[in-house]
């Protein structure tokens, strides 16, 4: 029996689901030979409530989503948070800086009373999450790697070293040397430092490494004449939910 895989979207941009389809034909065929995709609303009409592995996309931003996620947890053997919103809260949590009534009023004005919203949170703030496929968006090859590991009954190997390691291997000039702030020293690797390779800095979308060396980041900032406030502002974009941002 092939394992049954389901994708569920909560509050987000659905870019993770889209990139899950960023495969070549061989990969699609291999994947469909290995698993039964039974629930994937963005691309298929059929839906089943019988599944083994559930991928959760998006953050939790409504009371009704809490109930729905708990139901999924009850059904699935393995729950994987998929993408920054589900893993660490992501950009949706930026609204948490404002009182909910104010956020509603800014967007919907006098009609704000129609809408239900709660402070945004990652999936593991609501249920136990077994694994995370991180990033905004996640790297498709990492998704495949995780699916492969789960099929083999192994624990997926998720990096726990900072982006700096991959960035150095890519041969980039350090972003701090170019006079910009960067979250590479504290952010979990696995993206091959794609943002720095593309001429920018690390935005921290994969969340913190397990034991971030915050003191070292502060030292680096001092060395380059940058302030903690500057880096915290950048950090908040994806990591508002993390304790460190508070």
């Amino acid at each position: 029996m092939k394992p049954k895989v389901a994708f569920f979207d909560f509050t987000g941009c659905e870019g993770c689901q889209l990139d899950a389809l960023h495969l070549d034909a061989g990969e699609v065929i291999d994947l469909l030979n290995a698993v039964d995709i039974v629930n994937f609303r963005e691309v298929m009409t059929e839906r089943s409530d019988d599944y083994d592995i559930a991928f959760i996309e998006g953050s939790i931003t409504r009371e009704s989503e809490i109930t729905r996620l708990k139901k999924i947890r009850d059904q699935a053997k393995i729950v994987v948070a998929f993408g920054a919103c589900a893993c660490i809260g992501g950009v949706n949590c930026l609204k948490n800086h404002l009182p909910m009534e104010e956020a509603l009023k800014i967007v919907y004005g006098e009609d704000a009373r129609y809408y239900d919203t709660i402070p945004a949170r990652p999936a593991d703030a609501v249920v136990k999450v077994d694994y995370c496929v991180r990033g905004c968006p996640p790297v498709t090859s990492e998704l495949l790697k995780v699916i492969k590991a789960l099929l083999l009954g192994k624990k997926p190997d998720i990096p726990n070293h900072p982006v700096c390691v991959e960035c150095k291997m890519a041969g980039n000039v350090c972003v701090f040397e170019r006079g910009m702030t960067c979250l590479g020293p504290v952010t979990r690797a696995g993206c091959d430092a794609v943002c720095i390779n593309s001429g920018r800095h690390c935005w921290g979308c994969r969340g913190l490494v397990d034991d971030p060396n915050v003191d070292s980041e502060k030292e680096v900032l001092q060395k380059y004449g940058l302030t903690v406030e500057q880096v915290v502002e950048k950090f908040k974009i994806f990591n508002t939910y993390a304790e460190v941002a508070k």
Partner: protein
Amino acid sequence: MTDININVHQVTRVEGHGNIVVSAKDGKIEELRWEVPESPRFFEAMLRGRHYDDVPFIASRICGICSIAHTTASIKATEAAFGFQPSEQTLLLRKLLYNAETLESHVLHALFLAAPDFLGVGSVFPLVETHKDVVVMALRLKMLAYNLAEALAGRKTHPISCKVGGFAKLPELSELEALRGRLENALVDLDTTVELFKTLSPSIPDFTRETEYIALTDPKEYAFISGQIGSTDAGVAPLDKYLDVTNEFCVPHSTAKYTKNKRDSYMVGALSRFNNNHEQLLPRAKKAAQELGLSAPSHNPFMITVAQVVESVHAAEDSINIIDKILARGLEEEDNQVKVRAGRGIGAVEAPRGILFHDYTYDDKGILTKANCIIPTNQNHNSIQKDMDALVPLILSRPQDEIRLTLEMLVRAYDPCISCSAHFLTVSFK
């Protein structure tokens, strides 16, 4: 006449969440609603207080499928606020990047999301067995679009290198040359796509409802990232009049806002662009339109998908032309520093699903103080509702499943992007 009771909770194969509700008793329609229950996202609130360099990066997250459209609109609004004029090189690269998204999004919609309806299946997955060549071709086109975006901006979903002022990193000319070759091959694949849609066209419902069609329009080219607001009813209006055109309002049961202009609704997207600007399509795209029996003005919303196929051809042709221009002139590192000033700017682009506005106000430190975003799908919600109002009485005598499928196909034709608009579709026939 039998009673009808349809309740499609979360229409599938669309981006985001929407419901269709229809109930009829003794041939009399009691309820007929397009509902948009997507979780509200609050981007306008979230962008407040952010530095201009972070604003397009955050705005990109409004939508994963059209992240390049949101990023571009956001960059344009910011540059307009600062009075910054990007270089010719930047504009060429931006348009090329933009074409990558248009191509990818249209191919995804036409071949993966809409085509299964015409082929009588629930998703693209069974087609891997029955129509393997088509699926392989669609994946090849998608991969090309991704690779083009990767060469220009690091990746397609949430692009990296494109920023306020210009590009943080330039592509290698050799990469562009290789992509040019693949784009030539893509034109052949797109010919096959046109042939495929010719065979599917008898299944396209014959339904028309004339409405107002709104799209960017530019005397210089078939507009995607330039021009002013064109309307088939009202002519051309400058971007700063966008609020007079869109007239947003809230409705109960929808987290997305609705819009109307000259009539009770208007349409945006590929068919609106085609109706406004078809004369400016590139030659191969024009020929594709002829072959597919699409002529302007078309008032059949089900033809939106066909217009997307035509625009896919245009995007590939235009990309080849741009690469030729770049190869002829070369690329050079530019000083793209912007000078910050307090002010307001409006950025408008044609996202795959239609005209998109970002309107920002910045203070003199380059911190955003106010944002307003008007999303294509929001502008179409009202049109979807009015189409349903016109369509359902015509098909009410048909079996309930057929009515349901036709309405789902209608919604899918609009290719709604509900995450953008808030989240999108449910049909309930109660």
